[in-house]
């Protein structure tokens, strides 16, 4: 039961032939400044459905910039970015918002939970803009919370939860809308080592169920858990742990 909410997607038999989720075709981003900052140099990258990718790099290297582009929170200033085969460059703001809401789940270092709303309400929020019925949303939110092991804290207010529990609520929120891509920006950055490990296990679980997961970190221990690791340094993205 618990696995079904994570994703309905079957894990492709051969990852090399699975459809691409993220396609960067010379995508790069330069903040105009002054001084102009080339936060992400033009890069080529394909992440296929069901992959588990970690991205490492020192502070200020451009990790968040990359994730913002991948998550449609920001647009590349050059090159093309395709999400699920859709060229995002020519999309209207409305379409970009819709894609964000329906295809991407975000997990942030700072959790970004609404402090006065219960865990269930926080998780439901990811489905408010999707047009699902209220009852279905609440059912999906409960399932997602059970999936992350918080079935006993459904009505808890975030301020009464521990850091690890808060991040699990945030992961449940990202899951509940059934995205095709889970983007995590330093999901364990605010957590101690033990708690970080449980959160990482949860993310690996989701990956085993077929979810495409992309995790940004500057913790090498976390990075090692990825089936595929990318490094980024001074805005240059490279395959493998070349840092």
């Amino acid at each position: 039961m618990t696995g079904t909410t994570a994703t309905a997607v079957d894990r492709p038999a051969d990852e090399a032939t699975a459809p691409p989720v993220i396609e960067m075709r010379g995508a790069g981003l330069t903040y105009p400044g002054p001084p102009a900052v080339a936060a992400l140099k033009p890069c080529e990258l394909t992440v296929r459905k069901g992959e588990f990718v970690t991205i490492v790099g020192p502070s200020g290297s451009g990790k968040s910039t990359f994730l913002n582009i991948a998550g449609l929170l920001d647009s590349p200033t050059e090159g093309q970015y395709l999400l699920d085969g859709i060229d995002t460059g020519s999309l209207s703001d409305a379409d970009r918002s819709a894609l964000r809401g329906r295809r991407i789940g975000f997990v942030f270092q700072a959790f970004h939970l609404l402090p006065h709303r219960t865990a269930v309400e926080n998780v439901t929020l990811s489905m408010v803009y999707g047009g699902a019925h209220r009852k279905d949303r609440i059912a999906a939110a409960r399932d997602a919370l059970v999936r992350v092991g918080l079935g006993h804290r459904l009505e808890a207010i975030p301020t009464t939860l521990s850091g690890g529990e808060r991040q699990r609520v945030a992961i449940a929120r990202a899951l509940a809308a059934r995205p095709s891509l889970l983007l995590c920006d330093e999901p364990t950055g605010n957590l101690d080592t033990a708690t970080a490990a449980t959160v990482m296990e949860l993310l690996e679980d989701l990956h085993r169920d077929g979810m495409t997961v992309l995790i940004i970190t500057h913790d090498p221990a976390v990075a090692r858990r990825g089936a595929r690791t990318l490094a980024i340094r001074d805005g240059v993205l490279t395959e493998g742990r070349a840092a």
Partner: protein
Amino acid sequence: MRIRRRTDGIEPSRFHWRDLVSESTAGLLQRPARAALTALGTVLGVGSFVAVLGLTATAASQIDARFSDLSATEVTVQDISGEHTEFEDLAFPGDADQRVERLNGVAHGGVLWTVQLGEGQEVRSAPVAGAGAASQIQVVAASSGALLAAGPSVREGRVYDRWHDTTRQRVAVIGVGMAARLGITTLETQPALFIGDEAFSVIGILDDTERKADLLLSVIVPRSTAQEIWGPPKDGAEMLVSTRVGAAQQVAGEVPVAVRPDHPEYLRAVPPPDPRTLRSGVSGDLGQLFLVLAAVCLFIGSVGIANTTLVAVMERTGEIGLRRALGARGRHVLAQFLTESGVLGALGGLIGTSLGVTVVVGVAMAREWTPVIQPTTVVAAPVIGLVTGLLAGLYPAWRASRIQPVEALRR
């Protein structure tokens, strides 16, 4: 192929109005005390708006009620011949009653004046000087028509008629209070009273009059009798005319010509004031001042809402970024904050309306008036609150919708 997928593949974001309302109220309830304080300006503004309009309507209906009863059927005609000639003692001819009663719409009409008694002449209940004297009782000369126009209700006996008037009978009619003062308890003993040396038989005691309430404090004698004894009036006479409902204005225009076709300018008819001018007079002075104050309150209230909403937008930048990341469009964020300020304004308007109505009812009860509030006022007031809130939220909500998700999430 890719174009097709793009147009088919993306289902747009939605924000059902029910979610809009629940998200907005949840946003407000995060800080209930602040929300209440913010709404206070609107409460005061809308409250005073309702109170002013309600009190004005209540007072106006009060005036209306008084006028529609009696005053609207009363015309008084003044003798202003003194302004035109020195040779006219009394501008009203002897047959003034008949002349005015011939007019269409007139119920009764006649001449009356206050008699100036000479030195030592006073009203007494006994012929002997000094015995039973009641000083400072005024004597009014009134034609039989004037007496009827005053609308007397007779307790005992009768009022005198035209025969008494034209044949100069020594008869008098007095009010019940006056009768008690003069020691007259019943007419069965055929009591008399004395004015100076003249004896008058009292033929009627009045309980009340509809008009000219001061007649109850006077001894009323027929006009011709008074003229024979004391001569023409020294302070001028007037005519009292009672009309049918709605005829007063027209009668007032006709009376001078009907009574004095030769010199209509000797007479000035005073119709009852038009109730409509009186009502606008009430809403004209103090009411307008209060409406201005209400508008100022509303303005301050809207500035308060604008300020609080702007602060809330700043505080909740992270939430806005999160909502955008979860699929909200800029306009969804705009709608949410606009709804929050609108709800705040509408709530303030509703509370203000109830307070205003309470004030109107309270004041009306204290004055024993009937509280009157136009339904449009009660309906419009919460709407005014809503509009105030929406206008106040316009700028902050626009700012919120312009917040870029990356910047909001970076913090």
